């Protein structure tokens, strides 16, 4: 087991922090005969925040799920810290320690308290000492501003609170990259703010974030780069200042005019 992990690390060992931490090249993905991603290429540098926007059904969720190997791809390459995700010999544990994901529907474990939700993976999967993990988990819960809710079950928390527990749960694995898939789309407007605040803090601390979002104001404020996808391709991208004011493609303009 340990031998295997060791023999694998050289594959990504030549990666250095000045290279893209996530690199997609001509990614194609089909569900059956339906091609959902038709050649996506993008690079994310360490500490960068990128936002992916686009109409519903354009393949944003699929794209983001491919990055941590929840979906496989048919063609192209996805590299995380120099390691190929689409490699059948890939050690998924290594990948998933590096990449955390937060879903629209939170997906907390309903039979566990907030604290246990955060502690489970480090204790059971990484086999880290319980005491250490608990300390870290409590700190993370405080970080997402949920002190006092450690022993609450997900059913007793609001949507926004659950989503912040989900973020803390991902962070407990100490990922290098965080993926957020429309994490505020299912929330009440009041609770959207607190979740965005948490993400903004993460971004300002230098966490590499890939966000799928419909919150254009937020994208404009935190993103280093914005990508607009439609029907499985990247139509247009650029720094937010330029993207939101000088979009050239008519599809982008139409989308922005609908949503802004």
């Amino acid at each position, binding site marked *: 087991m340990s031998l295997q992990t060791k023999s694998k690390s050289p594959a990504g060992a030549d990666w250095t922090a000045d290279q893209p931490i996530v690199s997609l090249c001509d990614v194609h993905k089909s569900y059956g005969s339906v091609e959902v991603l038709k050649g996506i290429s993008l690079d994310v540098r360490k500490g960068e925040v990128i936002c992916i926007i686009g109409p519903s059904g354009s393949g944003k969720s699929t794209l983001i799920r491919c990055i941590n190997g929840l979906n496989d791809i048919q063609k192209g390459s996805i590299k995380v810290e120099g390691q190929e995700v689409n490699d059948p010999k890939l050690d998924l544990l290594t990948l998933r320690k590096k990449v955390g994901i937060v879903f629209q529907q939170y997906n907390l474990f309903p039979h566990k308290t907030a604290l246990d939700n955060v502690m489970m993976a480090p204790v*059971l*999967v990484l086999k880290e000492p319980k005491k250490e993990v608990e300390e870290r988990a409590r700190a993370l819960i405080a970080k997402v501003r949920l002190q006092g809710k450690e022993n609450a079950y997900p059913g007793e928390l609001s949507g926004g609170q659950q989503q912040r527990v989900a973020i803390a749960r991902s962070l407990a694995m100490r990922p290098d990259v965080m993926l957020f898939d429309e994490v505020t789309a299912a929330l009440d407007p009041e609770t959207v703010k607190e979740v965005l605040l948490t993400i903004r803090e993460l971004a300002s601390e230098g966490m590499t974030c890939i966000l799928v979002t419909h919150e254009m104001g937020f994208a404009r404020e935190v993103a280093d780069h914005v990508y607009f996808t439609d029907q499985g391709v990247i139509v247009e991208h650029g720094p937010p200042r330029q993207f939101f004011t000088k979009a050239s493609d008519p599809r982008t303009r139409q989308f922005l005019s609908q949503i802004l």
Partner: protein
Amino acid sequence: MNDGAFRIDRHRFAVEHFSSRLHWRHGLWLALAFFGSFVLAHAQSDTQRIPSAIGTLFIWLPFILKGFGLNLLMSFIAMACATVLGVGLGLLQISHSRWVSLPAWFITHLFRNSPWLVILFMVMFLVPFEMQVPGLGIVRLPDWVKATFAFSLPVMANISEILRGAVNSIPKGQWESAESLAFTRAQTLRWIILPQCIRRAIPPWMNWYALLALATPMASVLGVREAVGNAQAAMEAAGARPEFLLPFYLFLLCLFFAYIYPIALWTRKLERKYVVAN
């Protein structure tokens, strides 16, 4: 996916249906009929010369209750076996390997869809009455043990199906978030999926226990000395008088009712609680 949800619903329906037929009034009716039948039997017999039905029943009561003890023992052991085997079979059924899931699926459906009496006869004839156990020499298997094993098979199959349905009813998002946190499939099942299944599975599990306990008198056809067989033997010994049939069988009915009815009520309560919790 949908199939699983459907099955859960069907179990729920079965439980609701089964328990909504039971009501405390029914117990009262049974007791009334029971005592009424004594009056009837008493009137029919030539008083004084021959013992009354209630007198006969009273004499044989310890014998019948001892038999009922065996009914309970069989139901406990069979349920324990069925639970262990059924959970195992259910886990095999949801395996991703066809070579594992297909045989498990076949066994599940074979035993779910066979008459219990046929399974009972098959086990009686296929399982030898003596077995060579290493270290213990030749062990004789009493008929009640074989019957217990036979009863556990159909319940095992149904528990296998309860487990499969319960696992499939857990939202896919639970699997996904576990997977993204690097849980393996086995870890996900052990720590995330199965703990959530237990609550959903308990009411149908209890329902199957009730059905199992009610089925144990079937063993009497093979001469197992349980309550119904013993009651029949007692009637025989008391002169096989036809006017005893009704009081004796009504007594058996009351006996089983008094045991099963609280279980059914409890099942229904848990069932309601589960529906509310969701």
